[in-house]
């Protein structure tokens, strides 16, 4: 930054003071796109064709954790299944699937037309609403800005 931003209040670090999970906010977010997302989640036939189009899946010796459908079903799918009742630990586990295991390159192909990238983006936005962000270097424990 070109200069230390000045303000009358010291800003607390989101990492140092993890706020409690706001279940109501998660539920509201899930509700806002429930129709479209639930339809997409239920439409998945498990054909695994999306996996073939994921370069990370191919690069990681076809590790199923890199399959686009796996990533979506175990994050957004789980959030809908549990109706948003998740713990911070569960959200933290989803972080790896949503950021480390997905570049959001939008190249995953679904023969049924399921919009997988949008589902990953939506799941990421839910995690962000709870102060969880997996973008490098935050995911690597970047030092706090001075």
């Amino acid at each position, binding site marked *: *930054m*070109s*200069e230390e*931003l*000045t*303000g*009358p*209040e010291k*800003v607390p670090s*989101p*990492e140092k003071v993890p706020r409690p999970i706001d279940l109501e906010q998660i539920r509201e977010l899930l509700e806002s796109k429930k129709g479209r997302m639930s339809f997409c989640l239920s439409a998945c036939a498990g054909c695994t064709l999306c996996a073939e189009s994921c370069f990370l899946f191919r690069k990681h010796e076809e590790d199923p954790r890199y399959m686009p459908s796996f990533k979506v079903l175990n994050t957004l799918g789980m959030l809908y299944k549990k109706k948003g009742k998740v713990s911070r630990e569960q959200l933290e586990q989803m972080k790896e699937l949503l950021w480390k295991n997905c570049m*959001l390159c*939008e190249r995953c192909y679904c023969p049924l037309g399921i919009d997988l990238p*949008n589902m990953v*983006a939506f799941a*990421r*936005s839910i995690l*962000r609403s709870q*102060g969880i*962000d997996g*973008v*490098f*270097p*935050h995911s*690597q424990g*970047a*030092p706090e*800005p001075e």
Partner: protein
Amino acid sequence: MIIAEQKHLEELKQVLAGYKKVLNVGCGGCTSVCLAGGMREVDELNTKLTASFKAEDVPFKIDAIVVERQCEPHFIADLDRMVEKYDALLCMGCGAGAQFLAERYPAKPVFPALNSKFVGVNRDVGWYEERCKCCGECVLATTGGICPMTMCAKGLLNGPCGGPQDGHCEVNKDAPCAWIQIYERLKAQGRLENMCKIFPAREWEGQTQGSLVLEQYKDRYAKKTE
């Protein structure tokens, strides 16, 4: 990636003066990675702006949202249902993101919160270096992987200029001379003949608005780009 840095708080307060309800739009792409416009930076800036306006008794409310990438239309489409509630948008993406927001919401003032600096590399956390001018005529194959447009203070395509002293640039004595580095690199690779190649004057395509349609997509976009 694109490297950006935050504008001064006072500058942002000046442009936001008079707007009571603002939406700060962060970007989960490049500006997140360079610690300028991701979720954490959006929250920090909002806290500082709120506190600063409050201290002056100025009514001001600012909300936060981070979209995955501001340079893609379907990612910013999530904002469609939100922007009506706000007087203005503050953009923590790069200049491209700010322009894309302004294009999508022409009725709303869009203010950039960042200065986009350059296309660069992540040397370490919080340490970025420019490596590409996006000039459109890459010469790295000839110059040993060192860009004279970016690394030479004079942007010389045929160098060195004659000014370097002890391997350092005469413009910035702390910086190594790019052309001496090119010479050393080529010498180590046994490709010194490249130093004798004279580059003709450039067409400076990079100075005009860039647009690229891949060959295999040209039919698809033929009507739009005509």
